């Protein structure tokens, strides 16, 4: 299980990356390597070129700006995990990150790499969907922003052109006191989630739900924002029974089947985990009377 032959490029600037992407055929970007390297070792991909992003400066940052978190594409998952800014302003991500793989995975894995790999059960991808993130990409034609709902084009395929590279993610933040929860079901600690549920909830002082976000990962090729449930919750008073009833709708979602689980099991988990996530998020809401 050794990688096939390829030409190696290690650009130093964003401009160089774009230049390479614009001229090279059959090129793969190497970020954290936690997804690409296994595929290379197993020869599941046979790129002619590998473009290593790890020397490029300026793509690793976590900052708050204009009510959103801006995260550079090459930010290591480990840095997100230990970031006080993320923990306090985006606790959903903080909870999700700890469930990504293992220490070794997160030491190398990057935000951008996970986003672009678009594994159906990737935690960061679900978080991006939950928060209606915006992805910034840069290509020959310059910079453009992609709303996260438009970002997955197909199974494990982002809607970016061959000459474009993801440079950052912008996560609009929920107000202080909001409730959050990221729950997933996996066979072993750190495994890919079979199904995950990310819940965000904003309530008024009487427990009436002002806003809700519910995202299911692992059920379809891309994370599913369950708008039907979100809409059923808004304006209602948060309660276990409300969540339970509303989340039954998740059973009707199309679900994948694989060696880990049949579709019906995923649909069942979708209903259970979404309910649990909403209950946990509700319990974390602060500022209720």
């Amino acid at each position, binding site marked *: 299980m050794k990688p096939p032959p*390829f030409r190696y490029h290690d650009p130093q600037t964003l401009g160089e990356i774009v230049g390479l992407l614009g001229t090279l055929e059959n090129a793969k970007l190497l970020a954290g390597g*936690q997804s690409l390297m296994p595929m290379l070792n197993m020869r599941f991909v046979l790129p002619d070129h590998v473009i290593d992003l790890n020397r490029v400066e300026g793509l690793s940052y976590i900052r708050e700006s204009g009510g959103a978190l801006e995260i550079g594409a090459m930010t290591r998952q480990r840095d997100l995990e230990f970031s006080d800014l993320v923990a306090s302003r985006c606790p959903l991500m903080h909870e999700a990150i700890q469930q990504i793989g293992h220490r*070794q*995975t997160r*030491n190398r894995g990057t935000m951008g790499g996970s986003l672009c790999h678009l594994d159906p059960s990737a935690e960061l991808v679900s978080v991006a969907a939950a928060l209606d993130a915006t992805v910034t990409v840069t290509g020959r034609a310059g910079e453009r922003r992609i709303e996260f709902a438009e970002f997955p084009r197909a199974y494990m395929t982002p809607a970016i052109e061959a000459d474009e590279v993801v440079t950052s993610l912008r996560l609009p933040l929920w107000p202080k006191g909001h409730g959050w929860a990221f729950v997933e079901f996996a066979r072993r600690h750190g495994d890919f989630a079979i199904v995950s549920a990310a819940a965000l909830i904003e309530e008024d002082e009487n427990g009436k739900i002002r806003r809700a976000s519910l995202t299911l990962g692992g059920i379809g090729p891309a994370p599913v924002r369950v708008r039907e449930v979100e809409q059923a919750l808004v304006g209602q008073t948060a309660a276990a029974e409300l969540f339970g009833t509303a989340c039954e709708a998740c059973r009707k979602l199309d679900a994948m089947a694989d060696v880990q689980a049949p579709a019906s099991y995923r649909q069942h988990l979708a209903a259970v985990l979404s309910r649990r996530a909403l209950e946990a998020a509700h319990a974390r809401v602060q500022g209720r009377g």
Partner: protein
Amino acid sequence: MGETRKIIVTVNGTRHEAEVEVRYLLADFLRHQLGLTGTHLGCEHGVCGACTILFDGRSARSCLMLAVQANGHEILTVEGIAPGPDKMHPLQEAFRDNHGLQCGFCTPGMLTTLIEFLRDNPDPTEQEVRVAISGNLCRCTGYQGIVAAALDAAKRLQAAKRG
């Protein structure tokens, strides 16, 4: 030979200049080009953890890195853990005394993982230790001796600090 690059890597405190093929895995570079065969390959797809090294002080799977990526960086392998040929690190002594190894093949990865973990978490609970080594597979021990060794090592390291 395919495309090569010159790299400078510091491994266990020793600076090495080498020329490597660009597709050469970091694990293979350490094992075969530098002759440091303590780092082991068990799966080559990033699950078993036998290849774990410390890259600039942080644990990483060397089967998922290219040797060229190590240019300008510092690596610690299992061979660099003992302070000298006649002494062992308290973590190694704890493994020995708690039967934390049987065939020993997963052991280098366990040790490097725990070096980082105990550095960052000097007083862990049993559950924290188990989570810390969740990315390292062992087929021999059932992990119990390894967990006991890690907790014992934590105590020894704390005592060494105080003493």
